[in-house]
């Protein structure tokens, strides 16, 4: 039982009126309920953890952080309302949303209000809309997919790919980008199978993938669906290799997929399993606080808060414009801010650049096989 | 005497059961025709077939010499044929006056005129006249649901005459009405018949009521007409007595 959740809610309830005006206001506006509540929940808990840690250490510029949570229900109409509510509360920064659609409907408002927003959305076009206050926490699909395409071409020497993707903005966006990159490397698309988020019976989908018999099966979906797809694939004896991005290799997928997940490989943009001291420690703290294993959204929320902390301390004052200006073209390393977990840079569109990993699942563990350098280097 | 309504070999069977078995009769201009018969003799089914509520298995129905077999009730009604049902059917959620206006509104103007025109479709005076005629005027603004059974029965009948029909088919108008109401109902019907020259067909169980009201009577048994004639003749007909008393 998530008693912790209950306690947290109560405490926020009691604290909210008590919170002194001097506090630094952070707002999380994201998907606490609705179709992608899992990712939203992870992101939120990452944020909560970071805020609690910082407050324990005395907050930002000696001021406590007051965090308020807003639920978009994964519904743009609600998202817009909640974002407005958050803006009315005049926060220093806003974290979220994760659902790219919700980012899109709210970014204009934030631009007008000149409030920096640290988003979780990964849809490619978000950084191309000229929002000077938008910053990613993990890189957009237009950065991830080329790396994967290279991997498929160079490491796997594949000529054809059978693709199964989840039909939401995340899955569709990734699919479109991947197809673009594959054709650019003249790798053929043997099958293009869309699936529903929350789908359970993948028998039909796997039959289609099988019929394509391609050199590589690319699985691009949410963790649970990835797990189910893998189970069905193994069941029907669909031969791999199975390649995917972050989600397919995530801890959750492995946990749910069991043996079926073994042997899948691919690219991991950001992972709680990165072989780095800071990340491992974070994972432990997170698990202790919320008693479940964070996925990459947990890291996104967490590192986002610390990035803001670092920049603000550097500025020495609460200055939204300054924050946004400084973050453009900034690089933060774990040395100067452990909370950033992995060295991270932002270009001046708010797009992010990090090292990323090629990994493989071996014996129910994610094993990093190769560390890919930042694109910028 | 010209026939307003001609019914020819009308048949209606449900699965195996034949409810109406080749019934033919005329209804003449201005008369009050009574139809009697034991329960289940097919009286109401006959009505429903004539009025398009049920599609007859065979046979023809003519109104003023025009074939109207199987025509939709609402169209038939607009041709001047109205009816009441065996079970009382007014609109309890509408006021008494509105019940009457409803009964008349579809007979004038176009769909559009009913949308943009006056909300009473210019029928309020007529409705009030009808109410006064049926001695219901003091209840005009009450909800029909709030009236006594007898009053509702009167209203039900009043609605049937609101559009000034050429022909009215009344299914047990006297059913469950107390004696005093009964006389007033009978007077009203006779009056309308006399004043508006409206033609009636009345299904009724209450013999005294029928005998007093009708000029001619059909007797129905097991879906067939077994006797026909003026009240006195029918009352004394052996087959009728048998049909009612059974073997």
């Amino acid at each position, binding site marked *: 039982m998530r008693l912790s959740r*209950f306690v947290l809610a109560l405490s926020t309830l009691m604290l909210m009126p008590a919170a002194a005006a001097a506090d630094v206001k952070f707002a999380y506006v994201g998907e606490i309920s609705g179709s992608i509540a899992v990712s939203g929940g992870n992101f939120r808990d990452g944020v909560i953890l970071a805020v609690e840690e910082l407050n324990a250490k005395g907050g930002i510029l000696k001021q406590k952080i007051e965090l308020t949570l807003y639920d978009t229900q994964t519904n743009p109409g609600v998202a817009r309302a909640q974002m407005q509510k958050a803006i009315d509360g005049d926060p220093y920064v806003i974290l979220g949303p994760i659902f790219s659609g919700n980012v899109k409907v709210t970014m204009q408002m934030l631009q007008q209000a000149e409030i920096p927003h640290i988003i979780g959305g990964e849809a490619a076009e978000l950084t191309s809309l000229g929002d000077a206050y938008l910053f990613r926490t993990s890189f957009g699909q237009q950065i991830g997919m080329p790396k994967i395409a290279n991997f498929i071409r160079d490491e796997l020497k594949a000529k054809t790919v059978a693709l199964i993707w989840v039909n939401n903005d995340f899955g569709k966006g990734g699919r479109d980008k991947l197809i673009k990159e594959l054709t650019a490397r003249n790798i053929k698309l043997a099958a293009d199978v869309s699936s529903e988020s929350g789908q359970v019976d993948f028998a039909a989908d796997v039959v289609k993938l099988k019929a394509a018999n391609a050199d590589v099966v690319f699985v691009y979906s949410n963790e*649970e669906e990835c797990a189910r797809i893998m189970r069905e694939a193994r069941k029907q004896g669909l031969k791999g290799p199975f390649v995917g991005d972050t989600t397919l290799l995530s801890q959750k997928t492995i946990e749910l997929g069991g043996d079926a997940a073994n042997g899948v490989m691919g690219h991991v943009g950001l992972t709680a399993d990165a072989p780095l001291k800071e990340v491992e420690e974070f994972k432990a703290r997170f698990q202790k606080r919320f008693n479940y294993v964070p996925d990459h959204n947990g890291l996104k929320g967490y590192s986002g808060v610390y990035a803001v902390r670092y920049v603000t301390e550097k500025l020495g004052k609460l200055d939204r414009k300054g924050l946004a200006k400084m973050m453009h073209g900034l690089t933060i390393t774990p040395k100067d801010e452990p909370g950033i977990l992995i060295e991270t840079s932002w270009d001046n569109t708010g797009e992010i650049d990090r090292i990323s990993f090629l990994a493989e699942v071996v014996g129910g563990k994610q094993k990093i096989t190769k560390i890919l350098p930042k694109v910028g280097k | 005497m010209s026939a307003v309504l001609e019914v020819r070999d009308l048949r209606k069977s449900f699965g195996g059961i034949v409810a109406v078995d080749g019934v033919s009769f005329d209804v003449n201009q201005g008369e009050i025709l009574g139809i009697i018969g034991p329960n289940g003799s097919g009286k109401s089914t006959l009505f429903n077939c004539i009025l398009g509520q049920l599609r007859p298995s065979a046979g023809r129905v003519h109104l003023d010499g025009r074939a109207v077999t199987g025509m939709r009730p609402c169209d038939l009604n607009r041709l001047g044929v109205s009816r009441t049902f065996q079970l009382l059917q007014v609109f309890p959620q509408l006021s008494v006056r509105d019940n009457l206006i409803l009964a008349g509104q579809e007979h004038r103007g176009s769909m559009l005129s009913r949308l943009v025109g006056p909300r009473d479709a210019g029928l309020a005076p007529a409705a009030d006249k009808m109410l006064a005629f049926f001695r219901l005027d003091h209840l005009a603004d009450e909800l029909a649901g709030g009236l006594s059974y007898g009053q509702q029965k009167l209203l039900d009948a009043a609605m049937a005459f609101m559009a000034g029909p050429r022909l009215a088919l009344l299914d047990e108008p006297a059913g469950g009405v107390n004696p005093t109401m009964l006389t007033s109902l009978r007077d009203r019907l006779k009056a309308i018949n006399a004043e508006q020259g409206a033609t009636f067909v009345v299904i009724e169980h209450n013999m005294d009521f029928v005998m007093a009201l009708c000029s001619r009577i059909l007797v129905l048994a097991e879906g067939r007409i077994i006797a026909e004639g003026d009240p006195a003749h029918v009352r004394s007909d052996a087959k009728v007595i048998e049909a009612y008393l059974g073997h």
Partner: protein
Amino acid sequence: MLADILQLFVAGLATGGIYALAAIGFTLLWQTSQTINFAQGEFVMLPAFFVLIGMGFFGLPFWAAVLVGVAVSILTLGLMFKKLMVDPMLHHGVLPLVIATIGLAILMKETVREFYGADAWPFPPLAAATNVTVFGAAFAVQSLVVLGISIAAVAALQLFLNKTRTGRCMQATAQNPTVARLLGVPVERMILYTFLINAALVALASLLITPIYLAKFTNGELLGLYAFIAAIIGGFNQVRGAIVGGLLLGVLDNFTAVYISTQYRLVVPLLFLIVIILFRPQGLLGRVEERTV
């Protein structure tokens, strides 16, 4: 090719079995109390969590937890649902109750999400998670078990309804409460029974699917819709119809996905539904509902 078809067919049947279990509940409740339960999907989602709570929170062994879970389900989703929600609204037409069940669905989903989290939880399987291969088509033993049990359950229910006195009383109640009452059938009790049976069925469904679905607060959403469609296709007033509708739907859905379109996989069942309603409203196996106007 043939293997594929067999594969799809059996997989479809297995999923269909689940739809059937949930669908029967619909038909039962509709027949006896004109209740359209929009929370039926959530009814299937919840019992698994009762079991998980039993195991996680009270540390019971699996089978004990299962027994407790089923008992709790019958108590809450059967008895309490009837007494606290349905009874007060019974005489106010279908709609208020529909709205209330919509509310109930939200309540169940949100409660689970809040206290158990939004992510999916593994659930111990009733059968070994192994596969058997027949004619080149591989079947999970689990889904075969699911199929078997659901068909058995329906058969048992049919038997109960036709062969036992209580069962016949229930059918009488379903067909015409007034007459049943005249015949001295304890109508109230019969209606209660149908609610208890419904609860038992959804609990069973929950135990069968959750190992495959994984325990998650959203499990009910699609399932509810499918069970709904299955119930109508099969015949909204026929228990037998529900199983046919369910299986048909499962298979139809799979073949649509492969041979027509995955993006529109729901379309064929829906169109089928519309056709059925327009041309055979009583459903494939249903009786014509004789309602006196």
